[in-house]
């Protein structure tokens, strides 16, 4: 019964942010919100750019700004991690982060992945957590949202050579959207019990049991708020949002789910508003919600079952699989949390995915395999589902024998090729890297668990990094040169291999004029189209990943009575 009300409250909260945050974001990117202009203007002057017409960028310049900025930020962050030992704010005196681990970590945060091969509280100083990681939780989120907005402008503009200004888009995104919400949410989570201090670990002796504990602390609460609002997901501590110092109560747990889902869902409203057809945004929203709801249902159901190993040892539970889950969150909400984080690009965990039932783990894994479009990461979710929508329009057009159009823009060979590229890059890189890892010793040495579950751990790692998710079946020992470097490649291709085609699409679409809708136009805002889009998402994800899935979770589910 409690879970029912949790869902009801979440739907109401998300409905509010869909409508109002969505409208606000459209206003921000159309330049109608100005109250922080005094802070923006000097910064633009320094950059010699601004929102004026003369600084508008064609897609190639927009993309090169994105890539150069990200590459330099990556190099800068790498440097800071390598000289961590000489920097201040380091009460535990951690030394430099090893080269391969530094590479993986900084790529992970620049690409909005937040995959954690490092143990936060035993590796990184406060300086690195703040000056390298928290910054990227703002910046990488803004880069993703900017790319999505650029693609939306591709649809909303007519015969335009430009798609906006990268520098203005990311600055406005961070200043007007991410910063205020993250700050307020930070205050709330600290009030609930999250830690936020620079004072270092505390040593405390318990007279009742004679135990002396050394408890690591740090500026975790405000990091957690932006990491969730920007669908980053990499927390201060190794246990991430299962750690009571980051996620102290069931209230913060729900708040984190809301923060994570709010921008990805609301961007469909922003899209509808900017293309002047909220119905089109609502159609994308419906496709997202239907898939999301189905996945929450079966994952929560699977986790309501007993863990096979625990049941075989003679302990039966009425609540379900308690291994790797925290008491205060309850089991169904833990499953809801996990689905929310794997169907966005967040990847935070409040329970151990590795210990989920085979079907529960499949729920998390397959959510990422669908390309993270339901609702997906901040920005990346919208631009990727628009890529799927273009494929759906193309298939629909083939079936009825007409030139496909979406929002009055003719979808021609070039757009279909770009959309195809955007849809196939991720499965390709994930499957090839998984195949490499299971073929060589360095890869096979990684998994903690044996049998099909060990294979799932490897597949999960590359699926997560290729989708810039960051969720992990954390039994895998990822902090090796092999997994650090391969993971970094996976994340870079998964991010920019889709982001750049999306910007190219934006440029190509913006240059087109609008064909007025006629009776023969294939409708893209009705139930038929929602179904078609869902079909495309499921079929592309299903066909490419079914063989791999059947070697992992499906075999595991069917191995009744066997333990590995």
């Amino acid at each position, binding site marked *: 019964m409690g879970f029912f009300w949790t869902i009801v409250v979440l739907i109401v909260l998300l409905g509010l942010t869909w409508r109002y945050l969505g409208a606000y974001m459209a206003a921000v990117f159309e330049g109608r919100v100005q109250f922080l202009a005094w802070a923006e203007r000097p910064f633009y002057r320094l950059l010699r750019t601004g929102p004026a017409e003369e600084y508008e960028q064609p897609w190639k310049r927009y993309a090169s700004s994105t890539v150069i*900025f990200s590459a330099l930020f990556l190099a800068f962050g790498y440097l800071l991690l390598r000289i961590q030992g000489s920097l201040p704010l380091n009460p535990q005196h951690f030394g430099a982060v090893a080269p391969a681990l530094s590479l993986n970590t900084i790529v992970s945060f620049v690409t909005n992945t937040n995959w954690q091969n490092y*143990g936060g509280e035993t590796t990184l100083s406060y300086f690195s957590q703040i000056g390298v990681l928290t910054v990227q939780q703002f910046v990488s989120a803004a880069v993703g949202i900017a790319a999505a907005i650029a693609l939306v402008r591709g649809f909303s503009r007519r015969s335009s050579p430009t798609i906006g200004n990268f520098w203005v888009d990311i600055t406005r995104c961070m200043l007007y959207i991410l910063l205020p919400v993250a700050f307020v949410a930070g205050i709330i989570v600290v009030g609930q019990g999250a830690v936020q201090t620079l004072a270092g670990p*505390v040593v405390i002796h318990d*007279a009742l049991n004679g135990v002396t504990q050394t408890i690591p602390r740090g500026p975790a609460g405000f990091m957690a708020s932006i990491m969730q609002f920007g669908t980053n997901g990499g927390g201060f501590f190794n246990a991430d949002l299962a750690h009571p*110092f980051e996620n102290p109560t069931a209230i913060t747990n729900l708040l984190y789910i809301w923060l994570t889902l709010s921008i990805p869902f609301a961007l469909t409203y922003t899209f509808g508003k900017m293309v002047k057809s909220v119905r089109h945004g609502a159609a994308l929203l419906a496709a997202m919600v239907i898939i999301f709801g189905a996945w929450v249902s079966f994952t929560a159901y699977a986790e309501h079952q007993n863990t096979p190993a625990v049941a075989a040892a003679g302990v039966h539970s009425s609540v379900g699989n308690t291994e790797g889950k925290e008491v205060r969150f309850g089991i169904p909400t833990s499953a809801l949390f996990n689905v929310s984080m794997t169907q966005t690009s967040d990847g935070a965990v409040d329970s151990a995915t590795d210990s989920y039932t085979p079907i529960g783990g499949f729920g998390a894994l397959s959510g990422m395999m669908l390309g993270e479009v339901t609702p997906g990461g901040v920005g990346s979710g919208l631009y990727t589902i628009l890529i799927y929508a273009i494929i759906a329009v193309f298939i629909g057009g083939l079936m009825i024998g007409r030139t496909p159009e979406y929002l009055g823009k003719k979808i021609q060979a070039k757009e279909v090729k770009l959309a195809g590229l955007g849809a196939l890059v991720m499965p390709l890189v994930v499957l090839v890297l998984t195949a490499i890892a299971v073929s060589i010793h360095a890869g096979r040495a990684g998994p903690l668990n044996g049998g099909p579950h060990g294979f799932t751990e490897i597949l999960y790692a590359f699926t997560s990094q290729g989708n810039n998710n960051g969720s992990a079946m954390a039994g895998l020992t990822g902090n090796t040169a092999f997994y650090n470097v391969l993971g970094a490649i996976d994340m870079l291709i998964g991010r920019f291999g889709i982001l750049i085609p999306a910007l190219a699409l934006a440029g190509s679409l913006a240059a087109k004029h609008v064909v007025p809708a006629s009776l023969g136009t294939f409708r893209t805002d009705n139930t038929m189209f929602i179904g078609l889009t869902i079909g495309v998402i499921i079929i592309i994800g299903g066909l490419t990943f079914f063989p791999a899935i059947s070697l992992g979770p499906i075999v595991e589910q069917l191995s009744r009575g066997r333990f590995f």
Partner: protein
Amino acid sequence: MLINLRRSLVAIFAFTVFFGFVYALAGTGVAQLLFRHQADGSITANGSTLIGQNWAAVKCPGHPLGSCVFHGRPDDTGPYAANAKTHSSGGDNPLVANGVSGESGATNLGPRSKALYDNTKALVRYWHALGVNPTADLVTTSGSGLDPDVTPQDALVQVPMVSKATGIPAARLRKLVAKETNGAALGFLGSAYIDVLQLNEALAKLR
């Protein structure tokens, strides 16, 4: 190209200062001003109410170790204390005990893991030796390895053990458990829970 390089450098510097340090330090300032106790880790006289502790080694004269207090999740007891390797996070004991700072994290054992089966068996034996018929929470570990809470049911099954070792009547202990139970947040979020440290502090007052 060149102008983008220059813009990138300026932006990297400005963003790092503002969205990194100004944000985190201002946040720390506000947090310390408004919620000092929580921001510092909810530290009380005997430890943080948010971080679980090991209760298995408490000396109970005339009775088995740990039988005169309530236990939390077995994050660091039973097979997990003896065999730290079952923790994936580098073999650390997640309950940062005795001066060594470890990593938080789960066991990450899969649903059909032989090790999970063996560990659960060992924990069941451990509980049976104490005269407790364990619930699932009492033989499975948490996601953080630091779970400070148990459910009311988890505490109630330990009542006969604690009653025997302390001499406090079971009915009084059951009343204590009921008194220390926190309802689900806002009435519907998560599940009802008991903070094990607070329960044992209340128990100590009773003795």
